[in-house]
């Protein structure tokens, strides 16, 4: 026996099925945390171990940023509370990978913050790729990030290591009296050697001859043998592509053994608080490069400018912020900027976030943020020189950010 389906019954059934299908396809997962009115950030840092001091700066920056937005963030036009889950990865890439999986699967974070160090960031990127998550990071400068994950999952806020010294070398090539010979100190690590190789090529392109190179084992702290090897050779400028510890020991030994230089490029760590505290007056006339200084007058979303950002940060945490702090704040600020106009139904959709990040071109706390097709932020380094008494880092190049002029000739080891 058969029964004909009435038109009304058919429409009711079709409507219910359609609604069911629509609800089934609806991105409920995207609202896992948002359901509770919370946007959940997560990440891991080397909170203990060798990199603890840098990790602390990132952690402080996250806390400071979240406090400065009163724990609220606009996502797709609606305001949510902000939650942060941060783990200690001990700079161990295996642990970073495990913690990233935990953040995604157990903690159900909505957004991931980059770790610190090449290997942890690569490990984190691999997990983000597996789960099709976006990662914004400022902890690894290596090109490997671009090649393996760039713009697909990972967006990087620091320049590649090979461009760190370019601006300063270009500037030094115009010095009068001229820099004719260069010595390069680097460390036995692929990223630092990448920087040294690029610095060497740039020097030679600009007509400066590299007459001395010293590759230091990673545990080196005593630069006396480097300085003694330099003595007797005519070296006009020394470029350090290594850590701040290397620069500190180099300056200490170079003054002791009366090395004569026309210029010293202390590298990307020249503004580290450790150098200021330890070397003090001896920093005078030393050049360096950095991504950021408060005086660069960048334009944070929630502060008048980077000077106000710097002052408030120092008041809150008791130390002057360096570029790591700005980077930490920039990670959150960039997410905020992207999510503000996100589709409220699926705000964390990786494809949509990817497109939004690639389209970003905005002045923020860290400077002008825009990415190339490899997901790498396009930016020039700022050239600084320690000037005054007591010496302070002064941006001398590029002209749009400059706070003062280069003092040259000036003895970088006379402080």
């Amino acid at each position, binding site marked *: 026996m058969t029964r004909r389906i009435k038109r009304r019954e058919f429409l009711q059934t079709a409507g219910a099925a359609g609604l069911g299908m629509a609800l089934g396809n609806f991105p409920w997962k995207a609202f896992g945390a948002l359901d509770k009115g919370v946007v959940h950030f997560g990440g891991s840092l080397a909170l203990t171990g060798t990199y603890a001091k840098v990790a602390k700066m990132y952690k402080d920056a996250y806390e400071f940023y979240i406090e400065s937005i009163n724990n609220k963030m606009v996502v797709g036009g609606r305001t949510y509370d902000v939650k942060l889950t941060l783990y200690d990865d001990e700079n161990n890439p295996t642990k970073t990978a495990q913690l990233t999986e935990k953040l995604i699967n157990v903690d159900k974070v909505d957004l991931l913050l980059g770790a610190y160090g090449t290997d942890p960031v690569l490990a984190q990127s691999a997990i983000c790729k597996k789960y099709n998550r976006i990662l914004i990071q400022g902890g690894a400068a290596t090109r490997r990030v671009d090649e393996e994950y760039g713009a697909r999952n990972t967006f990087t806020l620091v320049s590649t290591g090979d461009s760190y010294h370019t601006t300063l070398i270009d500037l030094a090539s115009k010095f009068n009296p001229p820099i004719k010979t260069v010595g390069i100190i680097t460390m036995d690590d692929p990223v630092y050697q990448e920087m040294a190789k690029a610095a060497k090529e740039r020097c030679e392109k600009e007509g400066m001859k590299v007459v001395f190179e010293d*590759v230091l*084992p990673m545990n080196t702290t*005593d630069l006396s043998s480097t300085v003694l*090897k330099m003595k007797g050779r005519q070296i006009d400028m020394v470029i350090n592509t290594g850590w701040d*510890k290397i620069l500190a020991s180099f300056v200490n030994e170079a003054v*002791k053994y009366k090395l004569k230089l026309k210029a010293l490029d202390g590298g990307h760590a020249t503004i580290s608080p450790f150098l200021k505290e*330890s070397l003090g007056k*001896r920093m005078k006339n030393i050049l360096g490069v950095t991504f950021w200084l408060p005086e660069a007058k960048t334009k944070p979303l929630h502060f008048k400018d980077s000077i106000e950002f710097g002052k408030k940060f120092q008041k809150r945490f008791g130390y002057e912020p360096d570029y790591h702090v700005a980077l930490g704040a920039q990670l959150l600020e960039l997410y905020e900027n992207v999510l503000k106009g996100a589709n409220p139904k699926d705000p964390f959709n990786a494809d949509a976030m990817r497109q939004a990040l690639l389209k970003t071109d905005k002045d923020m706390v860290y400077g002008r943020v825009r990415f190339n097709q490899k997901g790498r932020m396009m930016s020039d380094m700022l050239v600084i020189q320690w000037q005054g008494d007591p010496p302070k880092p002064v941006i001398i190049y590029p002209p749009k950010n400059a706070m003062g002029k280069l003092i040259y000739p000036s003895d970088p080891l006379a402080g």
Partner: protein
Amino acid sequence: MIYFILLGIMKGAIFALAGWGFSIILGILGIVNFSHGIFFILGGYLTFTFAKAGINPWLSILAASSLVSVYALAIQQFFINRVMARSHMMVLVLTLGLAIVAREAMGLAFGYNERLLVIEGVNERTVALFGNEFPVLEAGAFVLSAAVFGFFFYLFRYTALGLRLRAIGENTEIARILGINVRWNYVFAMLLCGFWTGLAGGLTIFVIPMDLHQDIYWTVMCFLVVIVGGTGNLAGTFISAILIGVLLFLSSIYARGYSDSILYVLLFLLMLVKPTGLFPSKMIVEERK
């Protein structure tokens, strides 16, 4: 070349200053203290803190060394004494754990930044000898280590206290039966160890940047110095420290990047040929009853 050898000798003097404490504790208490490097780093960080607070740098070193010796005594009294009679392995694990805890505690107390103490008129001072410049700090460290060696030589050879300490090192039980207060002598040994290791750290912070994680390096280097010199032999410790200082410095000049490899290959060869070290002493762990 001779100039570099002389500089290496001066650098080796720091290893000697740091290594003697390790040697004394190994020889007398019969334990391998894996938190020894912490004494060194703590000496450096305290010296830095006092000097930055405006205290005379030399007084800062003395004050720091004294505090390190108090710290050394405290960990001996509260932790090491409780397990050393049971098993050497437990002492190893305990001191390793103490090092980790101390490192993190120092991070909280001092912050995680590195330290290098630069004081006008101290760090850069050199003395001209044989037509070459020698840094006064490193030269001073050598003179001091020679003086400290003289002190130890006199102490262990000619004083009743030294005799008691040697007796404990030879055989703790017989020393106890003979009426020697072993615990009290342990206290003295630990104070000596903490003081000289802290002082080595205090001097070193003028020469190289120090960070909280270097304690492992200094523990290993002190262990190495003692093994090469012959465990429990203070003269052997001095000579091996100087040899290692020269070797590391020459290799950093002529074979940068291979310093550690050269050092450990030579150590390996030495262990094959003379496993007791260059100058073995009877005050070694294996012979303790």
